[in-house]
């Protein structure tokens, strides 16, 4: 009983449980279709690159996982969500491609400026966007959702203006690298691993994580205790912008073009969902990075599984919605209070029974 309780009380229980559930569905589906039982887990090397459904999930879920890192910090520090990340992704990709192609060109076979400069510019613009959001939230104390609503609608539109409403193609092999393959591994997976490692190390070896949590739990108390609350919230938004930029470059490189209309579309929702699914409270405060990352891949696993089951991409949101509602209902204060009450009654009855026996 206590062991079960310990396991279910753990923050990572829910995301891991959902992940296992998704895998079970996949196994059942494979068996029903007469495939090998562990078809889902098979990883092979075809044409010199890793191949398998698991790899596909890891690869496709990269952008959401990278965004979830920044989003976790933002949610934890400011008790609000950054809904502009999808738009910022598209803007970063747009800036990068327009610079690389040269302003006004639509389809190029060579760079106008060096690759690293274009990528750096894209990421820098994304950081600036994050700084803008951070200034509004931390400096002017505007609600995060409203503050980020500005870039949510403007970011994509500015990207479209830069690209002149065209899709800018960059037909150069080295540009395809970030969304392509590095030796046998898909590069997005490696980029994600790098982002996760850096963030985890920074949180482990500096006090940033503690600062963020302190500010998120009580901004005023943290300020009085000597933390610079506003500066910490600002940093979180800049980091969120940085990760949005990295995700944007990755997504752009996948299709080696700046499809400003579609890059990062609705991805902010996935990132927020990943944070919630990872057991982090959207009300700020304590957070666990691992939860958000597992959450992000769980969402991708659900999406991939739904596609495998023959659900069209337009219809998949229905299932996503049902899953979201189930998860947040389980986590809601009302339901938690109900179960706590039931447990208390049970405990009281057990003690009463023991006393009666004695």
């Amino acid at each position: 009983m206590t062991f079960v309780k310990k396991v279910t009380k753990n923050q990572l229980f829910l995301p891991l449980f959902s992940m296992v559930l998704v895998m079970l569905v996949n196994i059942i589906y494979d068996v029903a279709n007469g495939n090998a039982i562990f078809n889902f887990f098979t990883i092979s090397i075809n044409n010199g690159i890793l191949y398998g459904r698991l790899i596909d999930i890891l690869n496709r879920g990269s952008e959401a996982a990278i965004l979830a890192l920044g989003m976790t910090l933002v949610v934890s520090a400011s008790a609000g969500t950054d809904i502009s990340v999808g738009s910022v992704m598209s803007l970063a990709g747009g800036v990068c491609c327009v610079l690389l192609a040269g302003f006004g060109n639509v389809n190029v076979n060579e760079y106008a400026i060096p690759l690293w400069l274009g990528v750096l510019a894209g990421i820098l613009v994304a950081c600036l966007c994050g700084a803008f959001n951070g200034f509004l939230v931390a400096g002017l104390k505007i609600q995060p959702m409203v503050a980020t609503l500005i870039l949510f609608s403007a970011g994509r539109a500015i990207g479209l203006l830069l690209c002149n409403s065209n899709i800018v193609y960059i037909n150069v092999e080295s540009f395809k690298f970030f969304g392509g393959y590095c030796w046998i591994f898909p590069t997005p997976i490696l980029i994600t691993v790098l982002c996760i490692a850096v963030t985890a190390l920074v949180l482990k070896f500096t006090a940033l994580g503690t600062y963020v949590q302190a500010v998120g739990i009580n901004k005023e108390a943290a300020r009085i205790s000597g933390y610079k609350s506003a500066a910490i919230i600002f940093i979180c938004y800049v980091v969120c912008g940085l990760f949005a930029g990295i995700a944007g470059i990755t997504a752009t490189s996948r299709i080696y073009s700046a499809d400003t209309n579609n890059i990062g579309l609705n991805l902010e929702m996935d990132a927020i969902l990943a944070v919630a699914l990872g057991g982090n409270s959207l009300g700020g405060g304590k957070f666990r990075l691992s939860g958000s990352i597992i959450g992000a891949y769980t969402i991708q696993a659900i999406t991939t599984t739904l596609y495998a089951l023959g659900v069209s991409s337009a219809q998949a949101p229905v299932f996503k919605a049902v899953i979201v509602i189930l998860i947040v209902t389980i986590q809601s204060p009302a339901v938690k209070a109900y179960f706590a009450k039931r447990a208390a009654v049970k405990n009281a009855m057990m003690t009463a029974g023991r006393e009666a026996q004695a």
Partner: protein
Amino acid sequence: MIHAKPAVKEKKRMNSNTILLLLTIGLFVVMYAAGCIAYADKGFTKLQTFLDILKNNAGLICVTCGMTAVMITGGIDISVGALIAMECMFLAVGVESWGLPAQLLIPLMLVIGVVFGIIQGYCVGYLGIQPFIVTMAGMFFARGMTAVISTQQVSITSSSLMTQLSTMKFNMPFEIGAYLNKKGKLMVPNVSIYVIIAILVLIATFLILRYTRFGRSLYAVGGNQQSAALMGLDVRRTRFSAHIFCSVLTSIGAICYVLNTMCGTTRQALGLEMDAISSAVIGGTLLTGGVGNVFGSFFGVLINGTISSLVKTNGKLSSSWPNVVTALLLCFFIVLQAIFAKVKARRS
């Protein structure tokens, strides 16, 4: 003497909100006047242009009224655009494929709205889940259901009632703003029936928010939940009913919307929720709750509509300009609100 002090304070608080509202109205007037001067040759000065802005935004006006009510309680509803898409698709497929009469389907759309509102309101009000997450799930659900009903673009052609309602025109009384066209025929500016529906919804919402117990309790709950609860208001029920109110107005908005477009597609009303929120914010509604006015929101919609109309009249500008300009305005008003709040905090 004791009474005098709070009275002065109350007046000051009213002032900063009134300034914002006046600024919104002033901005609209300036923008429209600038349009009239710049595009006088393209017919921007005609009354019909203004009525067309109303016509294109009739659905948005209804939705913004509902959104304002939810935002006054301190909540938010981002499912409205998807709900409109789902209901339009329901009506379109119902008429075209299932052969049901529109007389039956239109009340059913309202029923769908009520049920949608009850589920979302229950999650927000009684289960205590964040409104953003609940309505995000609602948005996913409604957008997905639209695709489940049909993934094609379905035009409404076979319902005579719908065609009649859609083409029904009401001329301006006393031929206000009438002009002679090139052939010498007298053209009287007209509005469609859904513009009248939207205006009625606007007036009704204004009266409900101002004079009914429900409307007053929305402000009380948004201003401060704890004091509202201590006053004896049922906070949970108020938030519950605010979401139902919003979903019903969204359904009425969906009727206006479908009468204007006469079709159902999966991409219908994409991003409408953000238009509604930005209109409400430009109109002076605070997302923290407790402050808001539907007439401000109405002018917010008009400003949005005027920007789109100006860009359309110009004809050369990219279609992303309205988004950029709206975002700039949103930024301007939000920063202004923040500055007012800071000044107020310093004074007290």
